[in-house]
């Protein structure tokens, strides 16, 4: 339906558009209001809570509302923000950030390292169920914390002293939660150190709460002077109901009941690499870690098991289990953005409503009309008062591509987010139809790759997979996708080498005429050039298919099925194009279109031979964003590919501090993988934006994180 209506409007509009340099109306100088920036966004944000959002629609807004240790620069690389300086340990496992002293929440309170730590604690808490928790996976204990498999000993058990970080020794789920608590008196939930009279919620005596953290821990707020430790507890709402529960601090002594005290656990100390506080480089063998029996009363789930430490209000230290050369790129991620504990506690599921929200970023939210728009204003409390040149950002929420393009055409918005242009408009915009492109139509590379997974459990023959990959002439695909996509047989996406800046060419060690793409990791400095892959070669395809036939004999598959998600003309056209190419090899492929979730379910169940897919990276790093998909047995490895040689090369790459040496190893690994052909890369995604000529400093970057607060309107 969308294609039909978009097509109609495009056909009608295109045949009679006025001959102009720009697509649609450009308001005259005296019409422009530099105080307001109007931005067409695609889809309503799923949430503005940095812990809960996972949508493209919310991402640039969340970055504008909540400050991070670093934030997105124009090129998508992190630049200092809340943190002004930082140090990295020699072994790439410890990262220390120093925070500025003048940062304020919109409530007036100072933004401290505890707010960053609280964000991480909240994201890795199972109760939060944050879709972003995996972004913190490099942290010690993070993954185990989400699945509640890691504890701190409250007293000595067996050979282990109190305070030792232990993990569940059995593969089964934990027998229960040792952090369940009750109180014999009503609990008055309040801010840390506040009197009971300042309570904003009460939990009736005897009702159960969950202990989230206690004051005075490695990463938690200090205990008020002269008091015993306070406890931060959660009173849950019914699952799925409108009641989102409530959090609050109470004096720890008030929690006098432990319903889970008698539960039996089998635990052992965590591996050295996962032990928080162990700041020395790891060498030598792992000491023995005997399994001991413990009870619920011996254990507590605690953020102390997490590799986060706050030595003082303006310093935060992160420890990772493995060397993490791309760590800085985690610090601007929404999973590590600051979270205002007072606001979150009172209304965990709706604290981002305009009347409740407390922000720390350059912009502040004043209105959110669902599915219609949002209003953000320049934050008066932001540490850089000159950062935002406009007074107000009006976000127009649009969920139809034709409508977005039409709104831009009539100058209802000054710029659009990426990829709101219907494919039927693209031949008009990119100059295919009238010989020259519109000047306000920008196409840039996206860190994303469109590919076809091959289910290696079903298509077991390597030669057959290689034949499938060799058979495809990718260069034809952009002619029917129309969006300037970059045809590529390489899995790791990047910028076409022909378009690289001279400094980047040198960094990549390539010449302008080298075919393919390259991933610039730090401009002019560090670059990853993926191996060429199995590019179109008809003879090679014939050769491989003959080998496959010889090896498989009667087992050579009569037909293969190719799945793609319905609703997009491009997926269908690509599927038919692939089908035709494979038919020339004598391989019969049936096409199945299904809805997206059904396709994902089939993918998970392994119920497919070949499936179209895409992968977007958040960080300019080939290993952490793309190669990781092909490791044996990981849940994201949808094609069930497994080659120990590939895994070994990645393992070897991990501890390398020299990032060039690391890239070389990763490249070697990628070559091993791509030669096995568990995947058929087809093209690199692009970002297509419409930006009126009077808008300045609005640029998209490879990870599609435009820093909205830097844009401004130039009045001639």
């Amino acid at each position, binding site marked *: *339906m*969308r294609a*039909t*209506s*978009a097509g*109609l*409007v495009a056909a*009608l*509009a295109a045949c*009679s558009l006025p001959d102009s340099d720009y697509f649609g109306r450009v308001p005259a100088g005296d019409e422009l209001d530099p105080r307001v920036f109007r931005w067409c966004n695609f889809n*309503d944000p*799923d*949430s503005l809570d940095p812990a809960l959002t*996972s949508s493209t629609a919310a991402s640039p807004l969340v970055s504008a509302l909540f400050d991070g240790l670093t934030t997105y620069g124009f090129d998508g690389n992190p630049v200092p923000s809340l943190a002004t300086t930082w140090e990295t340990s020699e072994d790439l496992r410890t990262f220390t950030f120093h925070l500025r002293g003048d940062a304020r929440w919109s409530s007036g309170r100072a933004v401290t390292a505890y707010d960053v730590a609280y964000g991480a604690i909240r994201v890795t808490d*199972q109760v*939060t*169920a*944050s*879709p972003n*928790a*995996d972004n913190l*996976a490099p942290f010690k204990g993070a*993954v185990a914390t*989400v*699945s509640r498999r890691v504890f701190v000993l409250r007293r000595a058990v067996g050979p282990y002293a109190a305070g030792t970080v232990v993990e569940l020794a059995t593969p089964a789920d934990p027998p229960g939660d040792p952090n369940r608590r009750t109180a014999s008196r009503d609990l008055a939930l309040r801010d840390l150190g506040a009197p009971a009279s300042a309570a904003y919620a009460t939990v009736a005596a005897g009702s159960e709460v969950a202990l989230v953290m206690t004051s005075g821990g490695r990463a938690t707020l200090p205990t008020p002077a002269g008091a015993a430790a306070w406890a931060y507890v959660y009173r849950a709402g*019914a*699952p*799925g*109901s*409108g009641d989102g529960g409530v959090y609050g601090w109470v004096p720890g002594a008030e929690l006098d009941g432990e319903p889970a005290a008698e539960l039996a656990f089998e635990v052992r100390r965590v591996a050295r690499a996962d032990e928080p506080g162990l700041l020395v480089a790891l060498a030598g063998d792992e000491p023995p870690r005997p399994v001991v029996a413990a009870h619920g009363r011996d254990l507590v789930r605690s953020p102390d098991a997490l590799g986060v430490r706050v030595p003082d209000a303006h310093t935060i230290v992160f420890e990772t289990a493995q060397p993490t050369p791309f760590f800085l790129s985690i610090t601007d991620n929404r999973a590590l953005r600051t979270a205002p504990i007072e606001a979150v506690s009172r209304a965990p*599921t*709706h604290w*981002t409503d305009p009347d409740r929200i407390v922000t720390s970023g350059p912009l502040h939210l004043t209105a959110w009309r*669902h*599915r*219609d728009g949002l209003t953000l204003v320049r934050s008066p409390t932001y540490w850089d008062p000159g950062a935002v040149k406009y007074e107000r950002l009006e976000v127009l*929420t*649009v*969920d*139809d591509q034709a*409508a977005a393009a*039409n*709104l831009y*055409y*009539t100058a*209802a918005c000054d710029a659009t987010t990426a990829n709101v242009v219907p494919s039927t408009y693209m031949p008009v915009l990119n100059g295919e139809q009238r010989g020259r492109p519109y000047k306000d139509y920008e196409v840039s590379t996206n860190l994303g790759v469109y590919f076809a997974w091959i289910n290696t459990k079903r298509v077991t023959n390597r030669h057959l997979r290689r034949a499938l990959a060799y058979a495809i002439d990718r260069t034809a695909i952009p002619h029917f996708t129309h969006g300037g996509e970059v045809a590529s047989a390489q899995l790791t996406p990047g910028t076409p080498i022909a378009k690289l800046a001279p400094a980047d060419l040198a960094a990549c060690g390539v010449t302008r005429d080298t075919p393919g793409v390259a991933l610039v990791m730090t401009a002019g400095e560090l670059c990853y050039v993926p191996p060429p892959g199995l590019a179109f070669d008809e003879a090679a395809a014939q050769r491989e298919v003959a080998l496959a036939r010889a090896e498989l004999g009667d087992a050579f598959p009569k037909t293969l099925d190719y799945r793609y998600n319905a609703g997009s003309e491009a997926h269908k056209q690509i599927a038919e194009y692939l089908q035709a190419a494979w038919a020339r090899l004598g391989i019969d492929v049936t096409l199945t279109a299904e*809805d*997206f*979730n*059904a*396709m*994902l*379910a*089939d993918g*998970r169940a392994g119920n497919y031979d070949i499936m179209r*897919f895409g*992968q*977007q990276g958040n960080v300019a790093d080939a290993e952490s964003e793309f190669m990781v998909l092909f490791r044996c047995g990981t*849940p*994201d490895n949808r094609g069930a590919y497994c080659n120990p040689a590939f895994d070994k090369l990645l393992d070897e790459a991990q501890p390398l501090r020299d990032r060039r040496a690391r890239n070389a190893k990763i490249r070697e690994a990628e070559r091993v993988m791509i030669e096995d052909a568990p995947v058929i890369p087809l093209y690199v995604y692009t970002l297509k934006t419409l930006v009126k000529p009077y808008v300045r400093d609005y640029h998209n970057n490879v990870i599609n994180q435009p820093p909205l607060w830097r844009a401004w309107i130039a009045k001639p």
Partner: protein
Amino acid sequence: MIRFIVRRLLASVVVVFVVASASFLLLHAAPGGPFDTDQRRSAAVQRAMEDRYGLRDSLAAQYGRELAMLAHGDLGRSMKRDVTVNDLIAQHAPVSALVGALGLLVAIGLGLGMGVLAAWRRNTRTDYGLMAVALVGISVPSFVLGPLLIATISIHLGWLPPARIDGPAGYVLPAITLGLLYLGTIARLTRGGMLEALGQDFVRTARAKGLPERTVVWKHALRIGVQPVVTYLGPATAALISGSFVVEKIFQIPGLGASFVDSIAERDYPVLTGVFVFYAVLLVLLNLVVDLAYGWLDPRVREARA
């Protein structure tokens, strides 16, 4: 009369129960779940997300919880957006209702007039002309009409905004697009009903009394002639004010239709069930209103019911 209403309302409880159960079971039967993603996600995080909504409990337990919440008027939380279903309906339903009401105004206002005129001047050029217009209204789907109006009136002439409601002007094109869909049907039903009414005894009586033709048509015949339209208006009103997904999409109206359709694709169980139940209640109530309207329009029905 009171007994009639009470009986109908009791029956509607059964209808709502059936609708809630059917939508719950059908959507759960569809492959995939609300937290399926093409992004990378660990098993631990996936589980935590499913646990938050009790999705790993047995289907029976989830069903029971859903019904218990429904009985308390709590339609639950969306699994995909930061909003409760009650809030979602409260935010979006009024928008749909307003646009729908304007569309209905267009449809009834023009449709009734056209139908009466066509019946009155039956088998003349006026009749044929009006019915041709009605036929076009019925035949041209809104996803053709809407973009056509946008391309000509908004893009070409620049008279009205191409999408969104940022002021009164934003209502014009959606109301016309919605209204024209129903206008044709209403015009044809009115014409049919009027033709029948105009041939009945009471009309002949009225004419014999020497009443002016205008009074005969508009006051006496229309009351009876409009009955098929009233029957049609029940479901049509429900459809119009509950939001036409297509028109809301084309014109980017923040109504309930889009939430409803997205919830199916996203497997957002609570939203789908909640909106379904809301639609069911709306339809039941509107049908009740229609039934009551018969009595008001036609004394014979009133007597039969009493």
